């Protein structure tokens, strides 16, 4: 990937990653696969949780995982439209 990714692309990449892991993934997996720093991952996850794209699950061993929601699936579905809109109007 030569071009710098914008925020929307990163959100889409994270959602695609989680979806490819049957809708649930841990933070370390997301961080490495999405090529993000710990701080960036925290910021993006906070935003995605706030927007309802994912939900956080904590098990008895306090292990955290993230599950994609219907809103997250809808974002992936609409991403191509959003991308076209951004590109044609020079947004992001």
């Amino acid at each position, binding site marked *: 990937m030569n071009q710098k990714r914008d*925020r929307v692309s990163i959100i889409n990449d994270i959602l695609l990653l989680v979806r490819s892991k049957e809708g649930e993934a841990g933070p370390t997996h997301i961080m490495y696969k999405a090529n993000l720093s710990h701080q960036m991952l925290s910021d993006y996850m906070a935003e995605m949780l706030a927007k309802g794209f994912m939900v956080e699950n904590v098990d008895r061993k306090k292990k955290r995982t993230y599950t994609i929601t219907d809103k997250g699936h809808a974002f992936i579905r609409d991403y191509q439209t*959003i991308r*076209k*809109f951004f590109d*044609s*109007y*020079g*947004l992001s």
Partner: protein
Amino acid sequence: MASECFLVGCFLGYDIVLAAIFALVTLALSIFALRVSAITSERSVKLFGFGFLLISLSYFAKAFFNFLVLPGLGSSVPTMMKLSFVLSLVYLGAYAHMILMLAGLIVLAYMTFNVKDARILAILLLLGFLPVIISDNPFAVFYLLASLCTLFIVYYYVKNYFKKRQLLSLMTAVAFILLFLGCIHFFASSMNPLFYVLANMLELGAYVLIFINFCLVLRK
């Protein structure tokens, strides 16, 4: 706009229809942009949405006030009282159109600068509004300022096209070039009323392109 209304009387009905069409196209685009901004939290999309919303309101104002004065202009022997009322409406509509359109264009131009400082936007708005409000010839000043703002936006979209090299970005760049040429023709319309008709045609071309572009974006 007042002189244009009298000079291009035969075109007045058509320009109301055109203004209403432009208002609807820009409103659709702004609503979509604001919905996308709610999903993505992108600041540039929010500014784009608000910019087009202001432009849409400016066209609604133009269409609405011109529609109100149309019967008054059509009567063969207008009384002084009626004429003064019609002129008040014309000026009210003209100022509403100019201020809203300038605000929209300034917000769009500000978006292209990619800076995050509300004070810059505030000073740009003030520097845009003041000359129009205090000038003896507000229409000329308005079209001059609108041309300058559109020129900055054109530069951004031409640059965007060379970066993306896509049909959609080309259409956007051409649309804003047409809007810029439209502004120049509106500016020249005080010399020859024909330029007013040409300016409307250029704007129509621009908004047809924007509408087709928008439909292509929405197409799955």
